[in-house]
Each structure stands twice: as C-alpha cells, then as structure tokens.
C-alpha cells in the first residue's frame, strides 16, 4: 500500500511528463529543474504540482511554504490549505516580532552593562562574560513567560487542528480513489 499523502509526490510513480524509472534519475531531474529556476529564485508550486518549502526567514527563522492549489480542489482541501497558511502567517508574525524584541533588548542590555563595567574608556578590550549575559537571559525568559504560555496554547490548538484536517483530507482522498 502506497502512503498517498495530500500533495506530496512519491518519486518512482508514474507521473505524467516526467522522466522516470529510478528515483535517482528523477532526483537528477529535480536538480536540473532547480538550476532552471535559479534565474528567478522563486519556485512555482503550480508547476511542481506540490507544496514547496523555502529557506528559513532571516528574522523569524520559520520556513515559508507555498501551497499548491490543485485544479480539482475540494472544499475540505481548501479549508486545510487555508488553515495551514493562517498558521504559517501567525507563526511568522509572532517570531519576527519576538526575535527582533530579543535582539533589541539584548543590545540595550549589552550597552548598559559595558558602560557599567568599563565606563567610557574607549581603548580597552571590552568583554562580557557568560555569567553576566545570563542575567539578561533569565530576565527575558521570566518577563516573557505569559507571552510564551499564550503562544504555546495557541500553537498546540492550531497544530492539532491542522493535523485533524490533514487526516480528514487523506481519508477523503482514499475514499475518492476507492470509488
């Protein structure tokens, strides 16, 4: 039994228009395909006929997905795709904001500490030990405890919701092919 999962393509199957045989040759095909898209770094999920994952965002460290919209998308599949898109956007927003806040507060802390430690001496080699930095980390973690708790709850809720929808979509696909 082949595990057909929503919009993930299994290599070695008969996919029209692709050079098949062994997975190795398909893989090589994908390699050249990537080269072709190097002129425009963005890949098109409609061409690939499956979801595409990008590099991690430099600010939020979350990888961006581009979801494939099949021509015969059912209502359930649409809901699933929208749910995942929303989760992704929510995650992006949260972590971008959170990481930039972390960076800013860390910079402020460092400047303050350096000034405290060395005064206005310009020529000394200024360093901060891990012990001193740990004060910042503890304070940041404690201050943001409630924010993290809220995020956790929301994330678990969304994660399970997406999983539930994925299961339903898979079931629907199975029933469709069985008929």
């Amino acid at each position, binding site marked *: 039994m082949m595990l057909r*999962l929503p919009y*993930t393509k299994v290599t070695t199957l008969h996919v029209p228009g692709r050079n098949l045989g062994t997975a190795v040759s398909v893989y090589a095909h994908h390699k050249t395909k990537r080269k072709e898209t190097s002129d425009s770094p963005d*890949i098109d999920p409609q061409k690939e006929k499956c979801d595409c994952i990008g*590099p991690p965002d430099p600010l939020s*460290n979350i990888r961006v997905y581009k979801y494939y919209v099949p021509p015969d998308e059912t209502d359930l599949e649409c809901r699933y795709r929208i749910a995942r898109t929303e989760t992704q956007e929510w995650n992006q927003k949260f972590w971008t904001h959170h990481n930039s806040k972390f960076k800013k507060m860390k910079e402020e802390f*460092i400047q303050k500490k350096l000034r405290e430690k060395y005064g206005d001496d310009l020529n000394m080699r200024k360093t901060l*030990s*891990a012990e001193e930095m740990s004060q910042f980390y*503890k304070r940041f973690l404690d201050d943001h405890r409630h924010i993290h708790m809220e995020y956790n709850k929301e994330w678990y809720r969304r994660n399970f919701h997406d999983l539930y929808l994925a299961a339903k979509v898979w079931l629907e696909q199975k029933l469709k092919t069985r008929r």
Partner: protein
Amino acid sequence: MALHSYTPQNKSRVADHCSVIWIWYLAMYNLVNSLGLNVAVRASEIGHVGKIVSCRSVISRFVSEHGVLLCRHRKCSSKAIFTNNECSDPSQDLSSVIKQVELTTNNGAGIMQCSKVKVLLIEKSLALKALVSNEGPAVHHARLGSVVHVKADKATSKDEKTKNSQEVEVQLQVDELLKRTKSSIENASDPKPYEDIEFIEESRDKKREKTELVGALRPNALDWKPQHVNIWKLGSQYSSLAKDRLTGLVVLTAMAGYAMAPGPFDPVTFVCCSVGTGFTSSAANTINQFFEVPYDSQMDRTRNRILVRGLLTPFHAMCFATVCSILGVGILNYGANGYAAGLGALNLFLYTSVYTPLKRISIVNTWVGSVVGAIPPLIGWVGSSGGLETGAWIMAGILYTWQFPHFNSLSWNLRPDYSRAGYRMMSVTNPRMCKAVALRHSIGMITICTLAPVLGVTTWTFAVDSLPFNGYLTYLAWRFYKDGDSKSSRKLFMFSLIHLPAILMLLIISKNHGKRKDDDVAPKDMMPNKVNLVSLSQDSLENVR
C-alpha cells in the same frame, strides 16, 4: 597602507630566483594589530606571492646563496625583494613566530631603502583558503610551512623603530588562524587565565568593514524545494525523526536491564524487549518533534530536523509515530509481558504529554525527563523477570541520577537559545540551582553504586570499580559548580557520555548470580515468589491481553 611595488635593480638575481616559488601568507590587519605588530599590507599592494617549499630551505637558501628573498605575484607580476640578515642560523627553530627581516625597496626615485619588517611564521598546515580581494588581505594556499609577511604602513613607519618589537611565541595552525584570527591569537599568546567570554566588543574600524557583494542573492535564496517524498531517503528520514542515536542508547539501557534481571536468558524475549523499546522510543521522539517544530526552528542545535525542514509533512510523521507506538507496545506485550508493555506505554505518555509541554512551563521538566530516562531498564528487567525487584530500582536509580549531571551540563551552553525560544530550564532561570543539582546527583550516584552490593544486587567489586568513574564525575561536577563556565560544563557533559556505558557494563559484569536458575537447591533469594513470577511471565506470553 603603503604601496610597495618594486622593480629590481639587478635582474640577474631576480632571474635566478624566478624558479623558486614560494607562498606567502599575508596577515590580516587585525591579526597584525593584535600581535602588536605595527605593520600590515594590502594584497594588491604588496604584490608578491610565492610558494614556500619549506621554511627551512627557503631561509637557509635565502641566507646562504644570495641573502635575498624574491617573490612574484602570480596575477600582477609585481615583485619585491627582501633581505633577511637575522636568520643566519639555518638550524634555528623556525616555529618561533615572529622574525624581523629587512625589506629593501625602491621608493621610486631609484634609491634603495632598507626597513625592518616583522614576519610572522605559521606552522605547517594543509588548509586551503583562497581569498582574493582588492581591499582585504590575500591568503594563499600552502601545503608546507609558510611565512607571513607584514609591512610597515607608511604613516606609522616612522614610529616603527620606537615601537616595542617583542617576539611572541605563538603556535598556531593555519586553519585555526584563518578561522578566528583575533581570538585564536589572543588565546594562544595571552597568559591570562581562561575567561568565559560571550561578548567581545569589536572596535569600529573602517578598514575592517567587510566587502559588500552588490546584487548578490542571499546564500539560501535558491533553496526552495518541492515537498516530495523520496522513497530512497525515507529510511534515513524516519531514523532522524526517531532520533536514532538517542533511541539506540535507550535500547541499550533496556538491554542492560534485561541482562541484570534474575530470569533466564531467553533470546526471543530479549529481542522483543529491545525492539519493542526501540519502536516505543521512536514513536515518542517523533511526537516530540511534531510538537516542537517552531521552537526547533529557532535553536541552532535543532534547526535541521526533518519536520523543521519540511521533508515530511506533519501528518506523515504522526502516522509513522502511530505505527511505531502500536508496533512497540504490541511487541512488548506479546513478546515480553504485559508489564513491559504497560511501562512502555507509560513512558510514551510521560515523554510526549508531560515532559514536552512542561519544558515550556516549569523547570520540573528536568525531573520528569529523568524519570522518563529511568524507565527503559525497568522495561528490560520486567521483560525478563516479570516483576520489579530491588535490582530494577537500583538500575532505575542510576539512570535517574545520571540524567542530572548530563542534562544540566548540556543545557548550560544553550542558555541564549533556550531563553529566546522560551524553554524554561534551570540553567537559565536558576543557574546556581542547576549547578548544585548536578553536583548533588553526582554524589548520589556514588551512594547508589555503594548501595547496590549492600542490597545484594551486585558483588562488592562493583562498589569499588565504579568508584573511579563516579569519583571523577563528582570532581567534574564540583568543578562545574565552582567555575560555572562553558569549559567545565562541556567536560562534564562529555564525561557523562562515557560514564553511563561504563557503569552499566561494570554493573552487568558484577551481577550477583547467587540465585542461579539451574541450581537444584532452592535458591535463598530476596524474591520469595520468583518461580511464580517466572511462570507468570510465561503465562503472560500466552494469556495477557
């Protein structure tokens, strides 16, 4: 920085040396500064590169034949000649790093100028680094010893003689040098004691600003990948989902538990215990990864996990986890006994539903995690003997106490990542407690290992031969407690990885076989209904559902 390109006066000398090829390492400006050298030069300006066949031969040849050193830059073919009147002794130890050589240059007016320059010698290295840039230093390939040439800046050349030119013994490999010039030089040459520095303020210096690539793509801009399931990679992807190394260690502890148990060695049950534990552990790890995708993407250590990179969909991973958990608990149930299956299921539940969420709620997660680590030997034990005797608890106790020095030292260096990602660990919230707990449990380890022979689980030899390991662990934990820096924490962590397998091995070889199954005499045992338990386990193989 000064421009010294030079057309040699006596061409014949140049011609002689043209056949000699040397490579020079050109020091970076900051390297130069940090060494207290007052010279540096730009690659395009220095205009000479060559390949050194060997330091010794160059210098000796250099000294004995003509007393000059010639280099020609491969690209721009500008030349320079140096004289070295200092290295007169060919047997001189060339690993001492800074030499003063005399540089003879033509300042354009046909007048030969002699100035002293300091040369930095680097030990032999096979590192290949080819950076060529107009502004920054150029570093060239050297398979053998190399000489770094540094030249006086025109502006400061006047003060050159007044500057204190102290020779500094710095032993460095080229690759180390190229990786972290400033810190590696400082660490090597500075007699200051070890400092756990996390932040160094870089001096703002225009000359050290990096060259910007104009119109370049970000390095990973081409990394858009379609989400295909590649059958051939599925095996290794499943292994990473299951955290194969961790699972392997868990299975080893379960096997140790089986080996220590007093029942007879049944290969089928043994394999079933191990495989069942392996599957259960894989399922638990996969579910853990499923829950923690956004957090893992924030931390350096975990950002290359399968679900973070999107190589498999979360649904696929959860299907895998479900299959593994059913297989694992099923194999434990039908291959070993119901108790093993129960413990396996309990462990799965504890890890996924208690430990994983708790990691972000409170520091109690470390204690829960230690219990999770202590259960696999119990699974092995129960699979063999059908009940949890004293020995099982001793083993569980060893695993439990071991987790603390192991995890606390590991988490010490991950504090920035934990803080940003929102994990509540002792090392961030209460560092003093973190160190104290690690020390306390290392001492507790000694206590448990002494208790084992007292309770009849092992012979007295175990208490004696485990003492060196436990003693060293306690010493490292003590150092960690006192110093609390990255060096001591890393040492403690590394040793804990050796310590546990060693202790388990010693435990097994010192096992107290006083109650052997094949004795005709009724064994005087601590477990009065051992026979019943064994038969119970046999029954359970057939009947337990």
